[in-house]
Structure formats: structure tokens, C-alpha cells
């Protein structure tokens, strides 16, 4: 496996997704949670999540629950990696966080 390409095309929606995760970098969020917090539609949200995961900014795993006892299916949870946290911090530092206000 060659060197992973960690570059991500930064759009306003991507910055909003990153901002949601940066509120608590250790939290694990499903796509539905991200949608509730930033309001990005599913057609845009899931490609962004896959894009960030492909670039190594996110890792994802299935939720550890028993669907029959929880009464709902397990969700896919995303979490910032250390590299993703560092890169996202650099991105927001370059933008000075003012553009999202």
C-alpha cells in the first residue's frame, strides 16, 4: 500500500462537519447525529464522511449494541483520528474560524 493521500477538498459543508467533530474530538458520531447538529443533507453528508475517512481524518466502526435489545439497528460511528484532529486544527487556524460565524 502506497502513501495515503491525506488532502481533502475543503468546502463549506466539510468545514461544518469538521466543526461538529471538533466540539468534542473524542466523541463518536453517526451520520444522523451530524445531520442534526449541522443540518447538512444526506446526499452531501455521507460523501464528505467517506472522503474524510478515505483521507485518514476519520475512522469509523459499528456501534456495539444488540439491535434486538436496543430496538433499533446499529449505527456507523465516526471519530476524528489524531492526524485528522491536527489537520482540522490547521485548517481552522488558517481560516481563523471567522468564516463559519
Amino acid at each position, binding site marked *: *500500500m502506497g502513501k495515503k493521500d491525506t488532502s481533502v477538498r475543503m468546502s463549506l459543508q466539510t468545514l461544518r462537519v469538521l466543526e461538529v467533530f471538533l466540539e468534542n474530538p473524542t466523541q463518536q458520531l*453517526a451520520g444522523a447525529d451530524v445531520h442534526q447538529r449541522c443540518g447538512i443533507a*444526506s*446526499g*452531501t453528508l455521507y460523501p464528505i464522511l467517506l472522503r474524510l475517512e478515505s483521507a485518514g481524518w476519520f475512522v469509523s466502526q459499528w456501534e456495539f449494541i444488540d439491535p434486538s435489545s436496543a430496538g*433499533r*439497528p446499529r449505527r456507523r460511528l465516526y471519530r476524528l483520528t489524531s492526524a485528522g484532529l491536527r489537520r482540522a486544527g490547521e485548517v481552522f487556524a488558517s481560516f481563523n474560524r471567522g468564516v463559519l460565524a
Partner: protein
Amino acid sequence: MSQRNQRSMPPEFDGATHWLIHHAARRAPQSLSSRLEEEWLADLESRSSTLSRLRFAVGCCWASMVIVSEFPRSRVAAASPAAAARGFVTLVDRNFGYFSLRSATLFLIAGLHAALFYGLITTLSPTRGTPAPPILENQTLEDVPREKVSVPESLTSDWTITVPKPDPEVPPLRIPSEDAATGLVKEPTEPYSPPPTPVIPALVVARVAGGPGGGFPDTADFYPSLSIHLGEQGISIVRVCVDSHGRLTSDPTTVQGSGSTRLDDGALKLARAGSGHYRATTEDGQPVNSCYPIGIRFQLKK
């Protein structure tokens, strides 16, 4: 949190959203298909209203198209349920071949347009219900002999053109009449016989070709100095087009060179400078526009 129990959704809409998500997941890369379907179905449960669930499902269709176009060569953790259960992470690298989704869509649209155009052409063409055309017989007409026009070799001398004059006694062409009731063409009662070849008298036009007239510039003024120094001599023939007032109507051109480009250029300059001093060609004494060659001789004085 189970919002599924809180919503009141018709079963047909629920089936439609599940079908859309299933369809969208199947369009995604194969290694991501099962993961995305399970993920999207789980996230669908967080939506309560019918419209929100429908929007979510349609958005998943759009997301699968974006993923297909964006991730053919990227490496995304597929993490299918079986692989995730074993703790493995699979990296996908999919090649979609020669045609992308966009190209396939373009070909499909072009094909539909072609089929529609063909259908319009074949259904709207006036081939139905039209009567068969009447049978016509062809008749071969003899060619009318033409008189040759002779043009003299020397264009600077007088010459004439003979133009055939129309004969007023030529009978009019017989056109077969059409029966208004039947729509059929009636043949003429008399057999067709070609008219006799008329004797056409020649029309003579007295034409006097033009040339350099009064006030035309002197050749010595346009003799190139380098040619004088080198002793170059010769005749350059230049074609000029002149109107009825002796002015050039187009730029002169060299018809036959003298062997020296310098002398030919000097001849062209002389021909241009002579505009307005040409003698117009006359036909029956009337000046007309014409083109004719003139010879310009460059000769050193001894």
C-alpha cells in the same frame, strides 16, 4: 432512542424509502454497498416525519452517485459486517472501466434523441394516402448547335464578338394539358416534331481594347535604381482592370515576368501609378469596364 414507534408513516412510504436506500446502496461500489445500506437504514430510524425520511432516502441516492464518481480509485474502509466482526478493514480499489456514469448517461440521452427523431421522421413523412404519380413518357430533344466564338490572340488589337440573336419565329413549346377531373396528363394529339434550326444572324460589336493613355507615368521614373546599376533590362507584362474612366478597379498582377523581380515590382508600381490615365476599352464607341494586359519595357539608354 427509538423514534420508529413515535412516527405514523404509511407502510407504502416506508417501503418506498427502504427501496430507495436499498437501490442507492446497490449503486455504490460493491465493497461499500452492504455497509452503506446498513448505515443509511440505521440513520433513517432517526428521522420521524414522512417527508424527512423521503428526503433522506433521495439524498442517499444522490450520495451513492457522488460516491461512485468520487471513489473509484480511493481507498475507503469497507468494513462489511462480516469483516468488521473479524476486526478486519478492507481497502477497496475499484475500476469502472472505460465508461463513467456520466458518459453512459450522455450516450443514453443521445440515443433517445436519435430514436425520437427517427420516429418523427418516419411517422410524419407524407407517404400515406398520396396517389401514385401519373406515368410520364420521356422525349429526347436534339441539342441546338452552338456557334463558336472566336477570340483573337492579340488582346491589344480590335476584335469582335458574335452573339446569336433570338429568332421571334420559333414556335412556343407545347405543354401537355391536365384533365381537371381525372388529374391525368393528356398527350398532345399531334406528334411532337422538333422545330427546324433557325438561321441566326451574327451580332457584331466593335470593341477597341484600352491601354495606357495620356498622362501615363514615364517608365524611367519607375526604373529601379539597383537594376540600372546592374544593367538589368526586360519587358514585364502586367494585367490591369480598368473602368470606363480609366481608373484601376483592382490591383495589377504580373502576367509574365521580365526575369528580374526588381523590374517586375517596378512595373507593378508604374501600373498602379497610372490609375486614371488608362484608356478605357470601348464597345461600339462606349467605354466599358475591362481587363487587359500591358507590356512595360525597361530599357537602358545607350
